[in-house]
C-alpha cells in the first residue's frame, strides 16, 4: 500500500475529465436540441432514426442555446488541455503499458466475458487492468480525438474547410461528433456501473491512490454485484463451511488478516456455546 495505484496526475485528470466531459455532454445535448436532426434543410438524412426528437431536458445543461454554447466553447479548452496532460503523462511515465491491449487480447477479452457470464469459474489473471478494461481505456482517447476533430470541423466549417470536407462535410462532421459523444457516454456509463458493481474499492484508489490488492476483483473473484464484500469477510463465512480451500489459495499472503477474522469468528461461536453450557448447568 505504500505504492499508490494511480499517480496523482492520473487522479487529477480523471476527475477534471469527469466534470468537464459531463458539462460538455450536457451542453452539447442542449445545443443539439435547438435542431435535433442532421438533415440539411430541404433534404433527408440516412442514418439517424430519431430526426426531430429532442433530448429530455433533464439530461441537458446550459438552460438555453446561447448559455449551452458559451459553456461548450469554454469547457472545450479545459477538456482538451486536460486530455493532453493525461496522454502526455501516461506516455512519458510509462503508464500506457497498462492501458494498451496485449498479445492475446481477444482471447483474454473472451475469458473475461465467459467469467462474467458464469461460463468460467475463476477470474482471469490479467494484472492491474483486465483485457476489457485495457480495450476500453485504449479506445477512449481515440474517441476523444474523434470528438475534438469533428468538433473543430463543425466550429469552423468555412475557415477550416479542408478539415470539414475530410469528415464528409458539415452534416457528417456533426454526425460524427454526435456518434463520438454517444460512444463516450456509453463507455463512461459502463465504466461507472462496473466501478460500483465490481470494484467499488477503486473509488478510493482514484481519490487518494490507496488500494488493497486483497480487495481487487481478481482476489475477490468478483462478477457484477457478486462478492462485493472484502475477501476477509467472505473467507470467514467460507472458512466455517469448508476449511477455506479456495479462499486461501487465491491470496497466499492472507495470514495477517485471517488471524483476527478467525479469532472473531471463534468468539462469536464461543458465546452461544457457553450460554448453552450455562443453561444446562
Amino acid at each position, binding site marked *: 500500500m505504500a505504492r499508490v495505484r494511480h499517480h496523482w496526475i492520473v487522479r487529477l485528470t480523471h476527475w477534471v475529465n469527469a466534470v468537464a466531459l459531463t458539462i460538455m455532454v450536457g451542453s452539447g445535448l442542449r445545443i443539439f436540441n435547438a435542431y435535433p436532426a442532421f438533415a440539411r434543410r*430541404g433534404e433527408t438524412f440516412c442514418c439517424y432514426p430519431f430526426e426531430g426528437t429532442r433530448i429530455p431536458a433533464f439530461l441537458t*445543461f*446550459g438552460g438555453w442555446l*446561447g448559455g449551452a454554447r458559451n459553456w461548450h466553447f*469554454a469547457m472545450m479548452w479545459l477538456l482538451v488541455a486536460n486530455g493532453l496532460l493525461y496522454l502526455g503523462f501516461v506516455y512519458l511515465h510509462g503508464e500506457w503499458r497498462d492501458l494498451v491491449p496485449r498479445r492475446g487480447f481477444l482471447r483474454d477479452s473472451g475469458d473475461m466475458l465467459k467469467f462474467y457470464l458464469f461460463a468460467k469459474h475463476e477470474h482471469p489473471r490479467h494484472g492491474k487492468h483486465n483485457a476489457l478494461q485495457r480495450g476500453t481505456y485504449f479506445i477512449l482517447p481515440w474517441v476523444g480525438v474523434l470528438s475534438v476533430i469533428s468538433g473543430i470541423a463543425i466550429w469552423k466549417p*468555412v*475557415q477550416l474547410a479542408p478539415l470539414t470536407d475530410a469528415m464528409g462535410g458539415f452534416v457528417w462532421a456533426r454526425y460524427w461528433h454526435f456518434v463520438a459523444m454517444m460512444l463516450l457516454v456509453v463507455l463512461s456509463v459502463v465504466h461507472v456501473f462496473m466501478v460500483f458493481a465490481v470494484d467499488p474499492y477503486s473509488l*478510493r484508489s482514484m*481519490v487518494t491512490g490507496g488500494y488493497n490488492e486483497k480487495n481487487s476483483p481478481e482476489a475477490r473473484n468478483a462478477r457484477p454485484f457478486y462478492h462485493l464484500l472484502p475477501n476477509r469477510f467472505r473467507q470467514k463465512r467460507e472458512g466455517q463451511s469448508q476449511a477455506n480451500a479456495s479462499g486461501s489459495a487465491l491470496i497466499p499472503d492472507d495470514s495477517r488478516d485471517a488471524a483476527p477474522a478467525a479469532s472473531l469468528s471463534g468468539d462469536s461461536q464461543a458465546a452461544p456455546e457457553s450460554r448453552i453450557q450455562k443453561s444446562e448447568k
Partner: protein
Amino acid sequence: MTIDRRGFLSISGSAISSALLASCDSRGPRSAERLLRYAERKNEVVERALLRHSSMDAPAAGARLAGNALPSYFISKTVPVWDESKRGRWALEVGGVVKTPLRLTLEDLLKLPRTTERVNHYCVEGWTAVEQWTGVRVSVLARLAGIDRRARFVDFESFDDGYHESWDIESAMHRQTVVAYGLDGQMLGPAHGAPARVYSPTKLGYKNTKYLTRLMFLPNRTGGYWSDAGYEWYGGV
C-alpha cells in the same frame, strides 16, 4: 488525511447528487458568468486569427437548394414589410467614418457590380441550408463610400423592430459577404429580408441582418440584438 469508506461514500454521494440536481437544465452557477465571458473573449482572438480572406465556403457536391425549406426568422410580431406609403422609398444608407456617405435605392444597388454565389447558411441552431444569393459585395460598397482607417467595425441595422448586429471589418470585407437582394434567381421576398439583407457564409445566421436600412462603418463595436442577449458577438464560421 484519513477518511473511512463510509464517510467517503456519503460525501461523494451527496456531492455528486447535488451537482446533478443543480445542473439539470440549468444555466450553471452564476459565478461562472465571468469565466464564460473571459473564454468568449479568448475564443474571439482565436477565431479572428483563423479568418482567411482566401477561405471560401462551397456547398457539398450534390447538395440541393433549400428553397422554401429555408426557415424565416424575424423579431417583429409579423413579417416586416417596408411600407412605402408611410416611410417613402426604401434606400440603403452607407455611413459612419466614410468620405462620402451613400444613399442607395434598390435600383442603385442593382446597377452596382453583381455577385452570385451558391453557399451554405450556417444557423446557430445547428442546421445548414444551401441557397444562391445575388447582391453587391460589402467591400464594393466600402470602396464606393471611401471608408477610412478608423473603421474597424460595421453595424448592419434593420427595420425589423430595431434588430441590428455589428461585425469586425475583416469579416465584412470577405469576398463572400454581400448585401443580397436576390435569392435563388428571384428578387428577395419579405420572408427572407426584402428589399435587401446581409449575407455571408463566414458568419452564423443571426449575424446576417435582414431588412437592411443602414450600414455604418464605425471605430468601435456596437453589439447586436442576439449578441447582447448572450450569443457570442463574433459568431464566426
